[in-house]
């Protein structure tokens, strides 16, 4: 009698192994990709667009597109930057269509829940303050700052995700830091 085969857990599968499974027809394996990258992508899109619903749309559209075009991911070991590239494109597309003052009540930052702890409420307020400052800087600088300092991408990964050269990205990140610092000074 054969001993039962121990299947690797999600954590043990590398990105290339997951991609290979999906491309061989294992649709459910795409759930691993979602679990692995969804939070970071949602955070990135929320920082870029400022609206959680728009961010969810951008990420969902991006992930579906990634699934459908997975065979065109040239280097599955770089799946992460490929996904950020796709979602980044969706965010830019959303931003391109948005009017300058397109903020409705639904898009306003959520009101603090009275049952939140004081610490959680303070964190939420701090996030709202920084997010407001972030939205005053240009989308390119915003993206550069978020990819580098929030999503933790290396400059090489950022180059793959944006299609820009590394020296351009470094300059953009430097300017983003200065612009954000300036914007934070002006926050009440």
């Amino acid at each position, binding site marked *: 009698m054969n001993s039962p085969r121990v299947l690797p857990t999600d954590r043990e599968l590398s990105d290339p192994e997951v991609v290979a499974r999906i491309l061989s027809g294992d649709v459910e394996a795409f759930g691993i990709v979602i679990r692995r990258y969804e939070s970071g992508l949602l955070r990135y899109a929320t920082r870029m667009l400022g609206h959680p619903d728009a961010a969810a749309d951008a990420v969902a559209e991006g992930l579906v597109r990634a699934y459908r075009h997975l065979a065109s991911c040239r280097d599955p070991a770089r799946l992460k930057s490929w996904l950020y590239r796709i979602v980044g494109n969706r965010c830019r597309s959303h931003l391109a269509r948005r*009017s300058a*003052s397109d903020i409705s009540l639904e898009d306003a930052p959520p009101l603090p829940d009275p049952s939140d702890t004081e610490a959680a409420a303070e964190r939420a307020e701090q996030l709202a303050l920084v997010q407001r400052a972030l939205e005053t800087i240009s989308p390119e600088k915003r993206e550069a700052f978020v990819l580098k300092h929030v999503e933790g991408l290396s400059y090489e990964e950022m180059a793959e995700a944006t299609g820009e050269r590394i020296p351009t990205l470094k300059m953009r990140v430097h300017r983003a830091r200065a612009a954000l610092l300036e914007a934070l000074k002006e926050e009440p």
Partner: protein
Amino acid sequence: MNLRRSIVLLLAAASPLASQGARDRLAGRVPPATLGVLDSIVQDAARDGLPTEPLIQKALEGGAKGVAADRIVAAVGASADQLRSARALLSSAGESRPSDPGEVTAVAAALSRGVSPQLVGRLSTALPGEPAGPALHAVADLVGHGFAEDSSVDLMVEGARLGLRGLRFLDVAAAAVQELQRGRSHAAALAAVRALLPQVPTPPRPAPAAVSHARRVQSSHERP
């Protein structure tokens, strides 16, 4: 030559030959099963004195984009309805030539961008004898950037009062959007542009090199 005539030259007028022209232009470009129904939509529009070129264009567009047959038919039908609504609005606004194909097409397009139908009347009153299309599009430009419709129309009416006509209304809208992008509030942007009227900037000229490198588009649709 004024804008009205130039738009008329651009568009084919409705004529008894429109229908045959439609079949010839659509054959091979749209799903064969749609030819009959599209032809009847175009014929109906021609009989009603509506411009047919926008309908033929919509069908060609659907075919080019690979859209399903039923969606092409639905879109062309919806375009015909928009043209009818535009003409009805122009008539009720007291336009002297409500059936001008260029004006009907321009107004239909502006309405499909979301401007309120009652604006047609307001602008027709402010611009007697002038096409309302460009001003409506200018209002649509502003509304798309978050300006209130009423204030946008007020700005165009003020521009008309000071002698602006035709595509200059688009320059008024562009100036207001520029002010917005410089960081002004919507109200301040409108006020800044009002103070400039009628001297809003015109778009810069293309460089001579761009003109000399310009190519002509080969189109199967010959202008009259």
